[in-house]
């Protein structure tokens, strides 16, 4: 049946298909591609001293020679890297558990893992300050049992890391779970039969089959974390700051749109690099 439908839909329907994707393609071109092109043009084609316009890379030269801007970039890369590693460490066990466990508890675990998706990050930031912040709930509980106070991560670079990891758990778990769906029970059972222990099953049977999903999950969350705004703004240190708050501040408070656009283009270049991982793994999947 399926194949006959596909034949019937063949040549004659092709324009309809193209028409269906025309709207999203047009929107991407208009709202994404064109602003990128115009941003790059505005930062490299700038008014010169003699009144005319000319090719000029000075804003980029400034960014890459300015220790303050570079610190902000390093902090963003550091936060993204640490978050990616932590996400993998936290989410892979959850996803594996959900894939192979049955019963009621698994349902509750899944509900809990998906919960952060429904909590706005501004509320998360407030909850974080009340719980982990100075004299917050954790401090009070530690105090009550006579333990010393903790040095709170609020207003240090670890503040946004904790918030961002929590915020990105659902997406990562869902993507990993989808990847684990393709791992057949038979393969696992066969490996068990020949005497593989849990670690060996994971390493030789499961991991090779989900490596693609891991890449997809990481590139998705990394894209979000790299350009995060709310959590670094509310929980992070004053300086260095992540690229999101840095761009906003340069644009609004320092009144320097060209420098802000330069920062945006640089951020975008890093995101493209992460995006390529995703595209590559999707393409590799197709090739199979």
């Amino acid at each position: 049946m399926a194949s006959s439908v596909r034949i019937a839909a063949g040549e004659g329907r092709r324009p309809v298909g193209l028409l269906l994707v025309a709207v999203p393609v047009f929107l991407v071109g208009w709202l994404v591609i064109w602003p990128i092109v115009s941003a790059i043009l505005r930062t490299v084609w700038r008014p010169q001293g003699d009144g005319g316009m000319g090719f000029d890379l000075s804003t980029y030269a400034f960014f890459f020679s300015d220790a303050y801007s570079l610190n902000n970039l390093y902090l963003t890369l550091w936060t993204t890297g640490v978050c990616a590693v932590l996400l993998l460490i936290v989410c892979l066990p959850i996803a594996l558990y959900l894939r192979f466990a049955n019963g009621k508890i698994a349902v509750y675990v899944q509900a809990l893992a998906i919960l952060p998706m429904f909590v706005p990050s501004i509320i998360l930031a407030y909850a974080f300050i009340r719980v982990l912040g100075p004299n917050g709930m954790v401090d009070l509980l530690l105090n009550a049992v006579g333990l010393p106070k903790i040095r709170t991560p609020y207003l240090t670079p670890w503040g946004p890391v904790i918030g961002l990891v929590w915020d990105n758990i659902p997406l990562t778990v869902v993507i990993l779970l989808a990847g684990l769906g393709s791992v057949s029970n038979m393969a696992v059972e066969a490996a068990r039969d020949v005497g593989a222990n849990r670690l060996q099953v994971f390493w030789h049977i499961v991991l090779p089959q989900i490596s693609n999903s891991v890449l997809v999950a990481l590139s998705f969350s990394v894209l979000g974390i790299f350009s995060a705004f709310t959590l670094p703004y509310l929980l992070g240190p004053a300086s260095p700051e992540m690229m999101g708050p840095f761009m906003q501040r340069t644009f609004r408070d320092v009144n320097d749109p060209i420098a802000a656009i330069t920062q945006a283009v640089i951020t975008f270049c890093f995101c493209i690099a992460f995006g390529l991982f995703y595209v590559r793994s999707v393409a590799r999947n197709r090739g199979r």
Partner: protein
Amino acid sequence: MKRRAFLISTAGSVAGMMLLPRMSFAAEGQIDWYTASDSNILDFWTNTIKPAFEAAHSGVKLNLVDAGDNAGIQSIAERAIAAMQTNADPQADYFEHADPRLPKGAIEAGLYVNMKDAGLSNYAKVNPLAIDSDYSLPYRGSQVLLAYDTTKLPPADVPKTWDELVTWIKANPGQFVYNRPDKGGSGGNFVRRAIHQVNGLDPKAFTVGNYTEAFGNEALGKAWDLLKDIAPALYDGGAYSSGNTQSIQLLAQGVVTMTPVWSDQVLQAISEGVLPETTGMVQLRDLALCGGFSRAVVLSNGKNRDAALKLADFILTEDIQSAILTELGGFPGVSWDYVSAELREKFADIIPTTIPTFPAGAWEAAVNDGWYRNVAPNIDRKS
């Protein structure tokens, strides 16, 4: 089937919303009002001024819009100048607080109404100390003070000059915090007080027009050294809260002993029970922390200019000015003679004789960026 029904109804309502007329033109009899102030000011307008004004002037509505920050107000003013050149509708009538000197040339372009000549019946009541331009109307004042916890710091030992304050901060590491200067006036004016300190305690040394890079670097550079010097003794070895409210919160949680605050916000916080009754307030004696009057500005090309002028006159009436004292914890914009004797007596100790100010414009950008570059990079990201 359920899924299809859901899709159809969702698509239908989205399409319906897109077909609704967009609010792209200023409505007749609706004053488009913008503010860059904190939410307590917006709440005060929403809950007190708006109902009173609309009751007194039937047919006129107030559309209260939060413009975010000063830069937000600036961009609306720039939009209004552009609208002026094309004779279009600026969709703005009234700025709750703006400096008429900004954007540059706005007064010359005729963007703002001259309040002195506008024939406001209450203009004569305005406190002469507060008038700064004929094009703006001071209607409420507030000042940055230092709030502290009297259970940890007895009022007798509280620092009363800048030098005593620095000594106290260094003697009590971790007990003082101020917010990032661009995220709220309490920390911003603490930074400006440091700038005054190293420039001869003379607020008149800085004006909107006298910023040059060389003067800025020299005048601000000394202040950065001063602030860098106290940074290690601040909360968490140099952490800065991200706004006025966050500073108050740290004080309320007993994390710090002292922090700069806006007078109106701290009075409100005490009356709402956010801060305990034991919260003390002190102003520096050698030179007060900056503060200032919020000055309303009316746009001359606004569609509802006359109604906006009525509003400007209305906020100078005794009822509203008393409400600013009692409900907002601010200072009145009119002379104290026009406030009821009972209130005058009650607030005797916060009646200011001078309120130092610091210009916005190029200075603001220089202070904000300079602070981040020079003072803040103190915290170790691996710690």
